[in-house]
């Protein structure tokens, strides 16, 4: 069996039994990256030397391989999360040479649990995009078909897991950026509740929406990674101080008797027939497992795209004001004045989509337009949030598609930003409501592309979402299905 295809919990057993040393594990991944990543472009920056040094510390006894389920486990981390001393670009020219002087909280937690970072994963610039085509370092390709996008914005994180170029990874989700690429790449992606995981050291895109979460080969690994990164952190004032349950403890509990809501607005005309077929198959599996399915309505679903693409750019335009060519990042000298330096640095440093969102955000927040756009969108956000709260009075969890189509072709939507935005229709509402959502592989399209099932739970319902996903994963038989690489 190929070492690189092991899940985190399997690799942990190999390491503990000494079937494999930590350096052998890291070496196996680095060799595979060397072989495959020139074609896939999952990584922006490799951390090969640091990774080998970390691994040696386990092999020579300085660190204990039994200390944690993550000890000696090689991971990828999205390049929007700060890693002390290792370049963090956010997929942008403006941060091409940025070396963070500190670790983000999730970075610190993973490191102290013994995880080894192989490198920084490719992404849409500042996490703005649904295809990873907006990276200043070139697009990532989908391991299942290199002419297709891996989804985005955490496309590098998802493709690296799917192609066995890491044991697991972290992504971030602002409007679907963990769930959609996980769905396109046939892996598990989990966006926790807003406030469950600290964002200290996560470069901000839209602060009322951003959340960090795991992308993994199976549900147990997602539970295991979330266990390490979840919890209160005084450095992030939006982080919620609530106990973290043992996520793996209840995975084995049956889902018999649970009620799953199927939102009627998520089965729209124009949805790809293979998505519909795969999701209906998964619904039948739910019934076989003894769960009850009830139709529910989330009446404001159709307004999610418009609300999100006002709120997220508004917050982004404010967050990205910090890139001024003074403290860090690109500076383009201008002979005129300070204003010229700002404008030149930002115009040359940011790509087209980032500029578009800064422009939209600046416009909707500007005098005379604030009420018509930003305030209106924030009110609609209340309606969308209310839809979910009502639905969860009738059911324990919701099941739905992740995206209306499987992975699309590279270049297909790049000239039409609105079409790209509309592809996020099924992931944006949960982000606006702040609820947890998981993408679980549930089948393959007729063209052999993965299809994901979205499982949504109430606020802080991570334990339930993981349990439902774990039980369905066993029954769906998609586990271990790998893209046809090599």
């Amino acid at each position, binding site marked *: 069996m190929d070492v690189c295809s092991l899940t985190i919990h399997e690799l942990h057993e190999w390491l503990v039994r000494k079937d494999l040393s930590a350096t052998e594990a890291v070496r196996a991944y680095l060799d595979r990256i060397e072989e495959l990543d020139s074609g896939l472009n999952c990584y922006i920056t490799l951390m090969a030397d640091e990774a080998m040094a970390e691994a040696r510390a386990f092999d020579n006894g300085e660190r204990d391989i039994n200390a944690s389920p993550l000890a000696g486990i090689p991971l990828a981390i999205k390049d929007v999360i700060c890693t002390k001393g290792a370049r963090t670009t956010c997929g942008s020219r403006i941060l091409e040479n940025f070396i963070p*002087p500190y670790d983000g909280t999730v970075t610190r937690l993973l490191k102290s649990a013994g995880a080894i970072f192989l490198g920084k994963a490719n992404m849409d610039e500042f996490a703005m995009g649904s295809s990873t085509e907006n990276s200043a370092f070139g697009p990532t390709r989908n391991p299942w078909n290199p002419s297709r996008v891996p989804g985005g914005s955490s496309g590098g994180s998802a493709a690296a897991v799917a192609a066995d170029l890491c044991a697991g990874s972290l992504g971030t989700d602002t409007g679907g950026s963990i769930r959609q690429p996980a769905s396109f790449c046939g892996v598990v992606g989990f966006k926790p509740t807003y406030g469950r995981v600290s964002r200290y050291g996560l470069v901000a895109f839209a602060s009322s929406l951003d959340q960090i979460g795991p992308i993994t080969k199976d549900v147990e690994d997602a539970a295991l990674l979330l266990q390490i990164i979840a919890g209160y952190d005084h450095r992030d004032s939006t982080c919620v101080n609530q106990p973290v349950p043992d996520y793996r403890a209840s995975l084995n509990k049956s889902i018999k008797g649970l009620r799953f809501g199927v939102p009627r607005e998520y089965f729209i005309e124009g949805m790809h027939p293979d998505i519909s077929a795969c999701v209906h198959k998964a619904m039948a599996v739910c019934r076989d497992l003894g769960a009850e399915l009830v139709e529910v309505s989330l009446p*404001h679903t159709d307004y999610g795209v418009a609300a999100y693409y006002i709120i997220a750019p508004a917050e982004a335009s404010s967050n990205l004001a910090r890139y001024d060519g003074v403290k860090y990042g690109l500076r383009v000298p201008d002979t005129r*004045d300070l204003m010229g330096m700002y404008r030149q640095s930002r115009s040359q440093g940011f790509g087209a989509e980032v*500029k578009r969102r800064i422009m939209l955000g600046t416009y909707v927040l500007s005098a005379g337009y604030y009420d018509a756009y930003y305030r209106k969108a924030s009110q609609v956000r209340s309606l969308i949030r209310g839809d979910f709260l009502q639905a969860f009075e009738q059911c324990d969890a919701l099941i739905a598609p992740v995206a209306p189509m499987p992975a699309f072709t590279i270049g297909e939507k790049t000239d039409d930003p609105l079409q790209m935005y509309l592809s996020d229709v099924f992931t944006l509402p949960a982000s606006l409501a702040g609820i947890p959502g998981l993408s679980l592989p549930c089948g393959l399209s007729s063209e052999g592309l993965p299809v994901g099932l979205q499982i949504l739970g109430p606020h802080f319902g991570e334990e339930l979402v993981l349990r439902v996903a774990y039980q369905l994963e066993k029954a769906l038989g998609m586990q271990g299905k790998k893209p046809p690489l090599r």
Partner: protein
Amino acid sequence: MAEKISREEVRHVAQLARLELAEAEEVRMTVQMNQILEYMDKLNELDTRDIPPTTHAIQLQNVFRDDSAGPSIDRELALDNAPQSDGTSFIVPKII
């Protein structure tokens, strides 16, 4: 169909956002922003008169802490990423 945003307004917003758009970029931005803003009109189908806005998805309260000094990043490290510095300060173009 009435234009949502004119090229002059796009230029003004770019100025507010500290961006400088090349001519072709400005033309394309105007077309795309018009398409996107027109789509946003969809929100006006909803009557939101009595709906309070949501700014955060979960209930957040003010987070207080003691006003006490703690360790912070040291100067050398903070200046490491500066495009221009003299070792003690960030250097910027003349402002006044």
